[in-house]
């Protein structure tokens, strides 16, 4: 991971606050694809940016429980699971406490550990994590694409199928990028170690 620029110190917090505004929520939660492919990754990004502001002492303690980035990446992967379920995407719209859980768990339990653990992870751990992410994109994308019935009460079937298609496309793209990296190395020379 490159060292992130220090200007925009509070970028993560600002991003989080912007996402929490009723206008942003209304817009990004109007469609299933926007909620899962834009709002949720941006919430993760907010946490990722916040990681820079963790005091050095806290980082050290966390690092001592996170050899090779294993527990941090596992945490990110596990927490991401429920938010792909139609039930929770619905509930986030209907129940404020679920929305609050989404707005806290995605930055703090996905984005933040990703930022801390990714640099610690070696080739094998990164490989397993990325393959699992790609596989999940295919699994969930396929499910949303072929499910004959509307899975969310708040989103229509065509929205659900668009999300499914988008996830499959993302899965294919990620696979291609990873394959290229494995064969020709990282474009900037910082190949997976």
């Amino acid at each position, binding site marked *: 991971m490159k060292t992130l620029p220090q200007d925009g110190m509070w970028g993560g917090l600002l991003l989080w606050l912007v996402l929490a505004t009723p206008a942003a929520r209304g817009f990004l939660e109007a469609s299933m694809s926007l909620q899962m492919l834009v709002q949720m990754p941006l919430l993760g990004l907010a946490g990722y940016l916040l990681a820079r502001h963790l005091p050095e002492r806290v980082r050290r303690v966390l690092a001592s429980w996170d050899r090779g980035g294993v*527990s941090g990446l596992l945490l990110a992967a596990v927490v991401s699971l429920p938010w792909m*379920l139609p039930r929770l995407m619905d509930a986030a719209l209907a129940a404020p406490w679920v929305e609050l859980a989404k707005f806290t768990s995605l930055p703090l339990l996905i984005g933040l550990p990703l930022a801390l653990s990714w640099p610690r992870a070696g080739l094998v751990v990164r490989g397993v994590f990325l393959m699992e992410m790609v596989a999940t994109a295919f699994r969930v994308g396929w499910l949303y694409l072929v499910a004959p019935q509307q*899975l969310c009460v*708040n989103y*229509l079937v065509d929205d659900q199928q668009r999300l499914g298609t988008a996830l499959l496309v993302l899965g294919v793209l990620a696979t291609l990028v990873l394959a290229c990296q494995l064969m020709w190395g990282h474009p900037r020379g910082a190949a997976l170690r």
Partner: protein
Amino acid sequence: MAMAWRTLLASLLVLVAGTVALALATDDFRAYTTEGARRLEVARHPRSLPEARLQTAAGGITDLDGLRGRWLLVDFIYTRCMTYCAMQGQGFARLQRELAPQLAAGQVVLLSLSFDPGRDGPAELAAYQRRLGGTTGAGWLAARPAGAEELATLMRAFGVVALDDGFGGFVHNAAINVVDPEGRLVAVLDQDALDEARDFVLARLGS
């Protein structure tokens, strides 16, 4: 070495906590959708339904409370719907024939509630029943909530959500809702599970 053990411990904790959280979020891995959760919840904890005034296809005003003492099979409709609501409506017409004795005896009532009361007046509701091969009256009530407040109350109580489909119609979580004689919603069945709905009430009527 200590770091490896701590990492293993942390990872195990993450896995256990994640599994518990997922179990809680899905009713022990049984309901992954809101509709699935609604059905499970209703089956476990029957819901008492609120009072709500209804205007029937015959034009009269009745109350959901006034239907106590019989089994109700309730579906939510809007009469302009030409796709699967029509199938659901034909299903109710079929139930009207198959449950004729129980309907005549006042043990069971079929109730189609419109969630589009602005457009579905008594005339439209009666036409809907005729178009689908049913008979107005004879144990099949088609009705609309008497006001906007009643509509919201009913949809909330039954857990029905109707979305604008972008073509002037609605998409909604269609189902056959079973209400017991005490006025409690006790089961939510698939909209095409006609036999199941019929057998459900017949079994409880002991016939």
